[in-house]
């Protein structure tokens, strides 16, 4: 047989993040199996080299070196938390590797060695926040995890609320790992917002929902991470997530033929999977995107592949709908679903936005077709103007 194309997989299969990330590994396995059944990539089989990073940044560093230097993989799919991505990115850059980050995150990575398939704030908030303000009112309270993702997301929320003529009733940041929310609940009641934006990360912080419900806070909620990542509506007893609105590019309840087909295949292979979340779908479609890139470049060489990306037409019909890679940022456009959690924790989709582009990096001045700064930017720390 032809020598295989090697795909390194570094995801957390144990530790803190396991609940949200085991599904990513499974999704990659599913896609690889399908591809290999139908003849591989350019006739070459796809071989997975998988390590459990144990929700530990230092493991990412160890294993990123290992897959690049020892296993000599062609591409790596790696990372859940942004910290883990930042831990391995210097190593990818140093060894001139090629990595996919298939995770929703705070945005801003402008690095030619990276392709990002996860959703970014402009995709999730430019849709979610105006909808919520129209539906419930203009007073907004943000409860966010106190680190890069939460702070930058909150910055986006603040900006969009302002642009839409609303006001921030309050903003509160919660250190990672905190599980007790009595004071925050009271703060929210004091501020009397029309709805609460919850940008809570990690399983401990998800305890907020149960505690808020039992204190009868009873406010609509909006989020870019919860439900789509940690399927809180499945884990907590109804009605604690009642009136939660989430913009996500995929969750298993999406009721399109493509989605149902994907879900069915997934469940057939992994019957005990607790939930097929958006990161699983990102990871699944990323394998196919990579296949397409290699086949069009006729090579696994990163420079050749980037020439393909630069053409701006690397697109596919994913389970969520059509997605395309943006050549400037190497991020991906998404179909964004507004998922609403009902009192019985059933999901409905009041609104769907198609082809929402990851526009911010490009507009801010990141253009990987021209220059590769290998850096992460934020709205308050944008790329230097040329």
């Amino acid at each position, binding site marked *: 047989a032809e020598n295989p194309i090697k795909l390194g997989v570094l995801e957390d299969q144990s530790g803190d993040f396991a609940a949200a990330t085991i599904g990513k590994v499974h999704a990659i396995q599913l896609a690889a199996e399908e591809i290999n059944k139908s003849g591989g990539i350019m006739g070459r089989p796809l071989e997975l080299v998988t390590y459990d990073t144990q929700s530990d940044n230092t493991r990412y560093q160890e294993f990123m070196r290992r897959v690049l230097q020892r296993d000599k993989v062609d591409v790596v799919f790696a990372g859940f938390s942004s910290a883990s991505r930042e831990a391995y990115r210097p190593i990818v850059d140093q060894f001139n590797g090629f990595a996919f980050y298939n995770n929703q995150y705070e945005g801003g990575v402008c690095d030619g060695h990276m392709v990002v398939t996860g959703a970014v704030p402009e995709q999730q908030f430019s849709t979610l926040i105006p909808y919520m303000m129209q539906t419930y009112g203009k007073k907004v309270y943000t409860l966010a995890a106190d680190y890069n993702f939460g702070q930058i997301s909150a910055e986006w929320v603040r900006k969009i609320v302002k642009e839409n003529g609303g006001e921030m009733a309050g903003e509160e940041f919660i250190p990672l790992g905190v599980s007790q929310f*009595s004071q925050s609940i009271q703060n929210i009641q004091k501020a009397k917002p029309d709805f609460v934006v919850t940008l809570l990360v990690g399983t401990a912080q998800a305890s907020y929902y149960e505690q808020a419900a039992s204190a009868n806070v009873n406010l609509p909620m909006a989020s870019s991470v919860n439900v789509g990542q940690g399927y809180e509506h499945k884990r907590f007893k109804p009605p604690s997530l009642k009136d939660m609105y989430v913009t996500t590019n995929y969750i298993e309840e999406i009721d399109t033929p493509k989605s149902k087909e994907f879900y069915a295949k997934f469940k057939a292979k992994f019957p*005990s999977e607790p939930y097929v979340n958006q990161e699983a779908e990102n990871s699944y479609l990323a394998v196919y995107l990579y296949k397409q890139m290699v086949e069009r470049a006729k090579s696994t060489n990163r420079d050749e592949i980037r020439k393909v990306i630069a053409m701006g037409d690397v697109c596919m019909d994913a389970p969520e709908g059509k997605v395309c890679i943006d050549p400037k940022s190497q991020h991906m456009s998404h179909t964004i679903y507004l998922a609403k959690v009902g009192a019985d924790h059933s999901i409905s989709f009041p609104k769907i936005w198609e082809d929402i582009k990851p526009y911010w990096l490009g507009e801010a001045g990141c253009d990987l077709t021209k220059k590769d700064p290998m850096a992460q930017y934020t709205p308050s720390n944008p790329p230097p103007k040329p």
Partner: protein
Amino acid sequence: MDIATLVFSALYQFGDAFAFLVLSACGLAVIFGMMGVINLAHGEFIMCGAYVTAATVHAGLPLPLGILCGTLASACVGVLVELLVIRHLYERPLDTIVATWGLSLIATQGTLIMVGSTMAGVGTPFGSFQVGAYSYSIYRIVLFVAALAVLGALYALFNWTRFGVLARATIQVPHMAAALGVDTRLIYSLTFACGAGLAGLAGGLYAPTMTLVPTMGATFIMEAFVTVVIGGADVFLGTAPAGGILAIVKSGMTSWQGQLFGQIGLLIAVIIVVRVLPKGISGFVLRERT
């Protein structure tokens, strides 16, 4: 906003922080404070209690019975762990750091493999009540009362009962207790089981209010250790006042400047307390007494 509302809300927040600190710490106070065993698997005993509670409630038991099951399950695991591992380490308590760290890895990952990465919650009972502009969870009051009850029960157990005196004697000079006819192995087992059971109780009590995942124990660990250590060598004269002081600092700082300050304030309070009372709170109380 009227004064009564403000006062109540401050008390509620204090009670809430106090309950969390004390319930987290009690099991550890017995195992570390009394036995000198540094139990890094404390969080996993809590997780065990929470999981068993949730599982039994899903199976149809009412919550209080579920919590009881969680407590007993943890205590039983405690007996087993004591028998197989801890028993051999009393002579060298520092080695328990390694052993219990190992146990914690086994428990966390073992649970992930066997039960899965998450478990469905059971929902918080009792609903809410209103004071002034705010509504509060009734269950949080239950937690506070439970914390007080546990403290009282422990005090009585270790100071007023024969078991308590024998346990303290055994832990101080084991060979001498044996020479006086005390079955020290039994005492060790029971004491450890008591600590493990208390951890399980904390898990059971918090199970309805929290995410149930294999790593959930980690959220309790820092608070537990801090409370126990600044409480000092005597568990019962230490844990309650330590919980009180830390809860005031934590709830005060949190309401004033948010959770980050609450946490950092807690840590600073620890440093200050240790500096002012280098033998911990109970060391201070006991010196005053004699």
